[in-house]
């Protein structure tokens, strides 16, 4: 009897420590990455890094300003391509689709979400780059846009479903047609959630390298307009980290730090705004 108690207690403690340890690892990975990036890349962060173009190897004082602007432009395009499609399809899924259709669309979006990003890159290559005969910002933005669609669809659907049904009935009973109900009551009620979903989707694709390899391609200089190859932070990291020069490695670390910093700021920022908004509304 006594032995069994001891055994039981030991097992309890073991399981608790095991789950605790795994949780600790999960949490500490982020902080480890962040710390490592700050340690390795922090030194190279300077005003020049944000404002100057890359310099030829050997010269000091170069920056990645073109890549930062490039990433911003690519994300803007991704938002332009992906968000309307994603949000509107999400509205269909939450408000209109029957059982079968809902299953089909959901399953498809989940599959699309699972398509490797390099394959999305090939898709964008064959659809945009090949007909245009050159790499371009447009192609890169399109590839990233396609990647945001499934995430936006699912998050939009979720937040729309969370809108309480009495609100729908209230609007319908006032003589609002279905699309007016959706447009004027349901979507506004879920707006903060939908926007968070969009921001998270953008943050997610901001770090994608693979789809940009043969769409946006990369650029050492500024890329005016939307029709030329363009630099981006993930591509800079990829090129610099795999390059042979020590300065490049350092700049890759710094670029990684900037990218992670941007993603974290967007992530935490939207969550904060969302938390404040919902506390006001309820």
């Amino acid at each position, binding site marked *: 009897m006594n032995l069994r108690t001891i055994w039981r207690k030991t097992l309890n403690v073991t399981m608790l420590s095991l789950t605790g340890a795994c949780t600790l690892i999960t949490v500490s990975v982020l902080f480890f990455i962040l710390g490592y990036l700050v340690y390795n890349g922090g030194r190279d962060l300077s005003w020049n890094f944000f404002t100057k173009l890359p310099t030829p190897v050997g010269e000091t004082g170069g920056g990645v300003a073109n890549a930062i602007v490039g990433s911003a432009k690519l994300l803007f395009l991704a938002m332009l391509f992906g968000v309307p499609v994603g949000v509107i399809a999400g509205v269909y899924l939450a408000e209109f689709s029957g059982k079968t259709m809902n299953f089909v669309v959901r399953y498809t979006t989940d599959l699309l979400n699972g398509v490797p990003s390099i394959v999305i890159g090939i898709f964008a290559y064959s659809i945009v780059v090949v007909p245009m005969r050159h790499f371009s910002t447009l192609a890169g933005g399109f590839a990233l846009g396609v990647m945001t669609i499934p995430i936006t669809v699912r998050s939009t659907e979720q937040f729309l479903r969370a809108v309480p049904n*009495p609100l729908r*009935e*209230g609007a319908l009973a*006032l003589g609002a047609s279905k699309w007016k109900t959706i447009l*004027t009551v349901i979507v506004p009620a879920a707006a903060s959630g939908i926007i968070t979903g969009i921001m998270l989707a953008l943050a997610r694709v901001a770090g994608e390298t693979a789809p940009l390899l043969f769409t946006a391609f990369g650029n050492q200089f500024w890329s005016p307009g939307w029709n030329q190859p363009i630099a981006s932070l993930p591509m800079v990291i990829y090129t610099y980290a795999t390059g042979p020069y020590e300065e490049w490695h350092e700049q890759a670390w710094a670029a990684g730090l900037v990218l992670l910093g941007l993603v974290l700021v967007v992530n935490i920022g939207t969550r904060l705004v969302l938390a404040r908004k919902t506390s*006001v*509304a309820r």
Partner: protein
Amino acid sequence: MASVSPVRNAETENMNRQPDNARDAAPSLAKPPEAPAVASSSLRFKVSKLKVFYGSKEVLHGIDLEISSNVVTALIGPSGCGKSTFLRSLNRMNETVRHARLEGQILLDGDNVLNMDVVRLRRRVGMVFQRPNPFPKSIFDNVAYGLRINGCKEKMSDAVEHSLRRAALWEEVKDQLHKSAYALSGGQQQRLCIARALAVDPEVLLLDEPCSALDPVTTAKIEELLFQLKPTCTIVIVTHNMQQAARASDFTAFLLEGNLIEFQKTPKLFTTPSDPRTEAYITGRFG
């Protein structure tokens, strides 16, 4: 749609010019003999052989009921007897439920509601729900919602004030019209929902247990409100509370398991019911 809104707007304005005390005085004159309100009333809804199905389940088994204008008609009965379903048939809200089906005929002023444009119908027949369901917008925008979707753009603030006054809420909210409707108490929210329904000037107001989530004081306010609305509106109210039906209504219908058991003037139904099942229910032997 655009051609309708100016007319509606003019109506609203006219009512607005009517002095407040005239509206307040009307019901108190009307009540004691009970004659004026009832005498001036005409047939509004004529429901015949109404059957409602959810999937294969028949919820209402052929109901015949005539609802007069400018009176309060109460629907009572135990839970699940189909009174809410009946109410929601009148403005076709049942259609929002999947697999709901309707047989029989519902005439509103002689026109079959099933052939009517549903949007039009619901603008004529407003509805207030069991739980207050204000939109996550400001108090003003909540009341203005119905007007805005009607395409009305002018005189909004007058119409909003008028509706809030009719719902006896104006004095409490006039300084915070642009605050969120969620900042109001439950009773205030319910009156806001009534104001929202009144803003489009419906001919009929359907209320689905509007007081079940409210305290007695607020309930009394809403009953008082129904009384004041009678001259301008036909009211159909579903209630669990028999005292409420007795206090606030002119006619009462008793439903049981999807059948209409008895439909009488309220005092008669509560004092000398003709069906033993009605008597059993109102004396509290079941339900």
